[in-house]
């Protein structure tokens, strides 16, 4: 019985081993990124700028019959972003977020990514705001608005120009969902489309250095 199980497992393993991967922790690719993007919900415009710090970066090759069939890099980053959008007559929203970013870049340059984060939002109401006191005296509240806690998740795709051309740039499109709370004792959510570029100033400067080879793993 045990023999049979071991045989089946060995067979399955051999089948899986037709494809093998080789992972290299490539510190030469570990660099900060600067981001600038246009953000919008439907027709309401905004802008976001941010900086990304790498946590780790792995170049991964998938082998089949000793040939590379797929090559891609996996990156993990933490980012800090300053965002703003303008919704006329409703509010302007200035919000800071810290995000954890998972990014995968194919050898062709195609990027896919996912991010999640938290932040702080300060809204500014979209019109003069009045307050009436007990005696009926009316005053204008300056910079009227509210502070909210904020959570964001998002996903998108893009193209990394450094993979094929010598350009330290990537372009991306990303859909984020921001939720703010407590908003009128409930949650406010807003889908935000982000279109932007990412600049990697250190991408060709660093030629190092330390490479770690991870054990091959079955695919």
């Amino acid at each position: 019985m045990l023999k049979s199980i071991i045989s089946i497992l060995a067979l399955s393993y051999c089948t899986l081993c037709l494809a093998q991967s080789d992972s290299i922790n490539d510190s030469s690719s570990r660099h900060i990124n600067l981001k600038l993007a246009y953000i919008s919900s439907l027709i309401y415009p905004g802008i976001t700028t941010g900086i990304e710090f790498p946590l780790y970066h792995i170049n991964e090759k998938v082998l089949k019959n000793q040939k590379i069939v797929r090559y891609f890099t996996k990156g993990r980053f933490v980012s800090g972003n300053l965002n703003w959008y303008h919704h006329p007559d409703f509010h302007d929203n200035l919000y800071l977020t810290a995000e954890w970013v998972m990014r995968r870049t194919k050898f062709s340059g195609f990027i896919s990514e996912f991010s999640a984060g938290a932040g702080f939002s300060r809204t500014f109401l979209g019109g003069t705001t009045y307050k009436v006191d007990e005696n009926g005296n009316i005053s204008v509240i300056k910079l009227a608005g509210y502070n909210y806690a904020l959570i964001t998740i998002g996903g998108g795709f893009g193209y990394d120009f450094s993979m094929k051309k010598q350009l330290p740039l990537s372009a991306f499109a990303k859909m984020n969902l921001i939720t703010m709370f407590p908003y009128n004792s409930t949650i406010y959510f807003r889908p935000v489309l982000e279109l932007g570029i990412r600049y990697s100033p250190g991408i060709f400067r660093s030629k190092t250095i330390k490479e770690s080879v991870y054990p091959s793993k079955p695919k």
Partner: protein
Amino acid sequence: MKQILFFISLLIFIGCQKEKITISSNASEAFYVENAGASMRVLVQGNTASSTFILVIHGGPGISSYFYDTKYISKNLGDKFAMVYWDQRNAGASQGTSNGGELHLDQMVEDLKKVIEVLKYRYGQNMSLFLLGHSFGSLIAADFITTVDYQNMIKGFINVDGSHNYPLNDTLTREALLKEGNYQVSQNKNVEKWLPIISYCNSHTGNFSIEESQQLGSYASEAENYVDSINHINIVTQVLKYSITNKYPVTAILSNLLYSEDSNFNKEIAIKQFSSSLNIVTIPVLLLWGKYDFTCPPDLGKDFYNHISSIDKRFVLSPQSGHNLILEDKKIFCNEVASFVLTHR
């Protein structure tokens, strides 16, 4: 870099909140009134130079005033008067943080009073102001005009398919559904749709719980779909039509609606009635009702009409409307409102 952006943004915000008061025949401006944890949006549109303002108190709770701002109304009322669209607390574009505890009727009446005070502060104390309540909005208006001398702040009240007495409303909804349902069945129209409604009404005869009241309300909305005489308006098409041009904050409207629909506030208003205090009302009143309004049946309007002491009062029944006369019979609506306001301003 971030600091520069922050200061640029700050300048933009200050610019957006700069006090702007337009006196013209074609004004359009929004401002906010902050009270008890809520900043309520007020949109003023139309002829502010006329010094005649119609303040729309939307239905709900939790619906938004955005849905009342249509091209037809702008063209046919906004050209003569200034239309004022107020988003109640926890509705539409109104904003705040943990303010659910302040969501009750007395607070909304105080909110309304403050909105009127700000309107007069902005556009002149001598303005002619009319209230226009629709559905739940008329409950706020009924509370307002029966509170001390508040009715003196306005020139008249327009009650459109409104409710001033929720317990009576439930009774009348049940009766109206039974009457129309039995008629439609006798005519062999939508029989399979009407039978469950009739059955529910027959088995729930009075002293309605909040759940029964909500079920009657749900049947009342549904039943309008089975009446051919109504000039049906597709609300979804209407929303899509105006969501971009009127800059709807769609997700805020939705969040507020879901919160208000589910809040304890509904338990409070389920027992509210102002029939017994309406006798103090002496201002001119116009009542506009849809013949097939099962949500707030015409007999509710007649109860309002019979209890007020106003000498100048008028009741108009639209033969092609349900609960949304403002959209379903827009011609009657605009003509009657314009005539009433021109007479009493």
